[in-house]
């Protein structure tokens, strides 16, 4: 699985996540800014071109009106009635009357404000308004002089002589039959009214306005507050001229507000056409749209950031999870193998594989499980695989494995087909159940002993009596064949037997050995019965809260005075170390039984020390008591040779002994194990002592001991 994990780890996504995120973020940010500015410029341009268009429309409108005005004027001048009206004759009088009516009609239908006929001397011959005729002269006006020279002329007046308001005047010559100019026909339009009609349709933003200036800078028409006729401030006029020259908008500040001005000239009239508004007003849509665009981009960016952050978290979570499971895989106590389903080749193995089987990872990677003789019986492999292919998984398939050192182990195999990426793998978990099996067998043995012990209790007394007879009869035999015993010599003499000869015969024929055999066999049989009884002992009634330190001391005392022990070694030579806590919670137990357990273990340790080859220089047994949360632990350890590997698994097995026949019954540790586990609900195990030898660890529970 580490291989699979490596493959995952090689994904560039994770390592480059931070730079990728940064690049994406910067990219989105740049595009947001670009969108903002581009949108703003575009919409601004659109707003301005719209303004220019308005300006152009104004220009064209003015030009066409003026054109229309001059065309109509020219047509009128061709009428004879006007020429006659200029003559001072009877005919002229009546023609003037007709002309006056006609002019009044023209003025009245709204096309012109004034229509008037001018004599060559500049006086008004007749006008649409009756109060105009003869009241003033226009001989000094440019439009009059130009018309008198035969041209159609146009002039913007700052103030008309009659209305005293800005007027646009068009004038055309009136000719006689010979083509000579006899007077001038003029029409005037109040520029404000004229412009008002045009400007009325112009709307620029909320506070924008359009106005018309004369070449001299006089306001000819303005829709609102500032009335016409006022001279425009010089600086503003400069801005207007600047805009006309550059054909671009000009910005200026007024009362703290930035305004934008676009101006153009009308060719026919020479007027300046100006559109003006707050800059913010004109550009507001641009800014707003830009903001919206920018906002959308920013929102996208935020979403992207969130998504990337989530992705980052997911990646981190995945990595951590992967790390966790990788550890679980590597450090699991059971062997885990990962093999490719297609090729059958092992792609990964964990640490337990090496520690259990003795094979290195490298020895199996890239090979199939058949290439390494792991299966003690190759048929098991076939069976396992066929079951796996049939069901997709196998649970606790038991078989024998052979480890690298040649040892056989009972293993429980569980297999599962897992899919990693696109490939299918076989994951096999191998649990070494050798120990468990052994313990189970031992427990079965112990159970058997318990039932045997029950029977033994019933017959022990009956067996011990005959055993006593056997033993003492044998002793009597020994005694009565002794050649140095006075009574024997006397009795022999009476029957004519030489005791020395008898003794020689006994030795020659090994009768003495046979007698010794009878004695030791009787002792052994009795010891076996005694130990078997221990299995059946029911001593709950004698349970009491006891101090394990006292029990340990008693056991040590018993061991040093043990007669049987003295025969094989001297306990006094062994350095006994006691490591007790100053304070210790009492535990519920049967003191004599625990005493016996400790005695058995001490005896075992002493015998191991005595039998050590080479002998142990400074034999030592340590008895340590420690208090745990819910139990008291007693450890008895020695610096002897330790328990050989092949004995470890069987050390608590009944009747298993490594001692010479007759020295041990093979029941001592088995009984101890039974007393601790079954009798007291505790745990007894064998460990390696820091002193070098064996360490027996006995845990007795504080609670439950009394009720077990």
């Amino acid at each position, binding site marked *: 699985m580490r291989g699979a994990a490596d493959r995952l780890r090689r994904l560039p996504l994770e390592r480059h996540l931070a730079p990728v995120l940064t690049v994406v973020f910067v990219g989105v940010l740049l595009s947001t800014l670009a969108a903002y500015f581009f949108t703003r410029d575009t919409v601004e341009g659109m707003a301005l071109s719209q303004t220019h268009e308005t300006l152009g429309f104004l220009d064209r409108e003015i030009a066409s009106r003026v054109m229309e005005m001059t065309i109509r004027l020219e047509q009128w001048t061709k009428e004879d009635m006007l020429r006659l009206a200029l003559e001072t004759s009877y005919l002229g009088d009546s023609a003037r009357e007709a002309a006056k009516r006609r002019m009044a009609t023209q003025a009245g239908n709204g096309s012109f404000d004034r229509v008037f006929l001018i004599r060559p001397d500049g006086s008004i011959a007749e006008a649409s308004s009756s109060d105009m005729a003869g009241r003033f002269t226009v001989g000094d006006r440019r439009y009059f002089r130009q018309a008198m020279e035969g041209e159609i002329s146009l002039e913007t007046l700052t103030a008309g002589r009659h209305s005293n308001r800005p007027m646009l005047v068009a004038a055309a010559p009136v000719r006689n039959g010979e083509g000579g100019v006899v007077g001038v026909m003029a029409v005037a339009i109040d520029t404000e009214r004229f412009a008002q009609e045009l400007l009325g349709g112009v709307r620029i933003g909320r506070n924008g306005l359009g106005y018309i200036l004369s070449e001299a800078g006089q306001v000819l028409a303005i829709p609102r507050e500032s009335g016409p006729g006022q001279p425009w401030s010089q600086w503003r006029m400069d801005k207007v001229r600047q805009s006309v020259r550059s054909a671009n908008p000009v910005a200026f500040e007024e009362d703290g507000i930035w305004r934008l001005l676009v101006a153009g000239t009308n060719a026919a009239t020479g007027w300046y056409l100006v559109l003006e508004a707050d800059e913010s007003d004109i550009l507001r849509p641009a800014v707003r749209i830009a903001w919206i665009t920018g906002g959308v981009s920013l929102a996208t960016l935020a979403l992207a950031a969130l998504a990337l952050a989530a992705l980052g978290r997911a990646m981190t979570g995945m990595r951590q999870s992967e790390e966790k499971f990788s550890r679980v895989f590597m450090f699991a106590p059971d062997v885990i193998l990962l093999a490719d389903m297609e090729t059958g080749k092992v792609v990964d193995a964990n640490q337990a594989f090496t520690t259990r089987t003795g094979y290195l990872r490298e020895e199996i990677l890239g090979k199939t499980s058949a290439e390494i003789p792991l299966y003690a019986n190759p048929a098991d492999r076939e069976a396992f695989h066929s079951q796996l292919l049939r069901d997709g998984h196998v649970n606790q398939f038991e078989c024998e494995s052979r480890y690298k050192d040649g040892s056989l182990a009972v293993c429980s195999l569980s297999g599962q087909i897992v899919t990693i990426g696109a490939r299918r793998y076989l994951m096999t978990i191998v649990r070494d159940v050798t120990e468990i099996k052994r313990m189970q067998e031992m427990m079965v043995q112990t159970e058997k002993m318990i039932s045997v012990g029950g029977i033994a209790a019933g017959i022990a007394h009956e067996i*011990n*009596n005959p055993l*006593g*007879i056997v033993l*003492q009869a044998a*002793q009597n035999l020994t*005694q009565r064949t002794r050649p140095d015993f006075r009574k024997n010599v006397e009795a022999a003499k009476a029957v004519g037997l030489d005791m020395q000869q008898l003794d020689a015969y006994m030795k020659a024929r090994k009768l003495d050995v046979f007698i010794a055999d009878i004695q030791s066999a009787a002792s052994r049989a009795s010891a076996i*019965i005694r130990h078997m009884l221990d299995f059946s002992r029911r001593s709950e009634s004698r349970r009491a809260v006891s101090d394990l330190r006292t029990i340990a001391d008693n056991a040590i005392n018993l061991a040093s005075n043990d007669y049987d022990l003295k025969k094989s070694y001297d306990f006094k030579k062994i350095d006994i170390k006691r490591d007790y806590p100053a304070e210790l919670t009492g535990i519920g137990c049967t003191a004599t039984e625990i005493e016996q357990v400790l005695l058995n273990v001490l005896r075992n340790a002493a015998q191991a020390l005595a039998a050590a080859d080479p002998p142990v220089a400074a034999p030592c047994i340590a008895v340590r008591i420690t208090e745990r949360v819910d139990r008291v632990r007693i450890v008895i350890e020695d610096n002897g040779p330790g328990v050989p590997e092949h004995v470890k698994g069987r050390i608590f097995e009944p009747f298993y002994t490594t001692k010479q026949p007759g020295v041990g019954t093979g029941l001592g540790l088995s009984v101890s194990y039974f007393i601790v586990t079954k009798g007291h609900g505790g745990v007894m195990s064998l460990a390696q002592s820091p002193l070098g030898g064996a360490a027996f660890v006995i845990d007795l529970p504080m609670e439950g001991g009394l009720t077990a």
Partner: protein
Amino acid sequence: MLPHILILDDEERIRDLLAQYLDDFDEFVVRGAESGEQALGMLREQPADVAVVDMRLPGMSGAQFIRKARSLGLCRRFLVHTGSVDMVLSDELKELGLVRRDLFFKPAGADDILARIRELLPEAGV
């Protein structure tokens, strides 16, 4: 005068084997009894210094015999020689002045019993 030893055991062969063994040493006068009642009768005729007593007996038990014999002053010291499986010195026996070393579980070595008797005899006032 030789010290008197009484062996009380209902099983004749055990009684006899131990008696024969002890007798060989010519150190004691050894008698045997098969029940507590019989033993008490014998002790009334001639008290003993040490009695080797089986616990499980027909009629009165070994413990009852010890109590009786002791209270009558017919024997000073007692050894228990039992086929019982109860390995512990009972409180009753403790009261009667017995210690762990006075307890012999069958099959017990006759030599061990002899050794203990020899230990006890000076205490028994012989």
